[in-house]
C-alpha cells in the first residue's frame, strides 16, 4: 500500500513550510484528493495517524480530505464538464479528445496552526 509513502512526502512538505512561521502545532491539514487519483481517503487518514502519532507538531492534526470531482475540457469545442460514468467524450459535441483538468490531484491546500506564544 503506498499511502504511507505519500504521507512521508506530505509530512515533509508541511514541516518545511511551517518552519517559516512560529508554529506550536498543526491542528488541521486540508487536502484535495481527485476522484481518479488512486488513493483511498480512509486509508490515507489511518496512515497519517500512524506516521504522525509521535510528532508533537502533527499528532493533534486532523486530516480534512476534500474529494475533487473529475472534470474535463473538450479539445474541440473548449467546453468544460463533469466527467461521469467513465464517459470520456464531450457531452456537448461528442468529440472524443478531451483533457482532464481536475480530479487527478493529491494537493495540500493549507494547514491550520496554533502559533507558539513564547
Amino acid at each position: 500500500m503506498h499511502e504511507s509513502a505519500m504521507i512521508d512526502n506530505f509530512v515533509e512538505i508541511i514541516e518545511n513550510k511551517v518552519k517559516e512561521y512560529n508554529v506550536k502545532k498543526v491542528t488541521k491539514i486540508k487536502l484535495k484528493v481527485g476522484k481518479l487519483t488512486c488513493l483511498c481517503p480512509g486509508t490515507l487518514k489511518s496512515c497519517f495517524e500512524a506516521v504522525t502519532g509521535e510528532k508533537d507538531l502533527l499528532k493533534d492534526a486532523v486530516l480534512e480530505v476534500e474529494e475533487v470531482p473529475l472534470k474535463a475540457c473538450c479539445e474541440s469545442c473548449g467546453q468544460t464538464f463533469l466527467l461521469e460514468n467513465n464517459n470520456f467524450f464531450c457531452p456537448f459535441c461528442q468529440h472524443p479528445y478531451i483533457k482532464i483538468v481536475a480530479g487527478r490531484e493529491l494537493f495540500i491546500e493549507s494547514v491550520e496552526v496554533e502559533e507558539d506564544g513564547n
Partner: protein
Amino acid sequence: MEIKIGRNVLEANELTAARNARVFRENTLFALNMMSSPGSGKTTILEKTIEALREQLKLAVIEGDVYTEKDADRIRKYDIPVVQINTHGSCHLDAKMIKDVLPSFNLKALDLLIIENVGNLVCPAEFRLGEEARVAVLSVPEGDDKPMKYPLLFRESDVALINKIDLLEYFDFDLERVKEEIKTINPKIKIFALSSKTLEGFADWLSWLKDNVQK
C-alpha cells in the same frame, strides 16, 4: 491561523521522473513502462519481444516485483542487461527506484529500456518513471470488464496489449467491445491484440516498437 501551502504531494516523483526522462533523451534511449495486473503475461511478452528484437536493437530490462528475482532470472537467459528491483511492500515502482538503478546500465550503449512494473492495475498509472511510452497489458482470462473498471491505467497509456487471444474460444470475452471501450477511455491509444504463446498479432506490436525506438 491558516497557512496556504498549495503543493502537489506527487511533485517529488514528477521531478525525479522528469530527470530520468532527460537522462534517457540525452542517451537517445527509448524507455517503456509495462503495467498490468499480475498474471497477464507481461514477462512472457517481454521474453518474446527480446527474442525477436535482440539482433536489431540493444535492449535492457528493469524488473519490478514486491519480492523475488524470478522475473529477472527469466530475462537473464537472454544475456542482456537486467536489474531486478524488489519493493518489499510497495505496490508500484516510482521514479526514485528507477533513478537509483540507472548507474547499473551503460545507457549510451542501449536503444530500448523496458521497465516491467509491479503487477497492479491501479497504482502504477499514478507514478511516472521517466518513460517515453506506457503500455497497459490486459489478458483474455482476466475478463472483458477490466478497462471500464480501471480506467486510469488505460487513460494514461500509449499502447494497450490484449494478450492470450489464443484462449478466446474458452472465455466469454468480447474482443471488439473491449477495444471500443478502451478507445472511449483513451481515443489516442494504440491497441494490439496478440498471443505471447502462438505469436499471433505479435508482428504489429514489434513494428510499433521498432518504429518508435528508431524515431
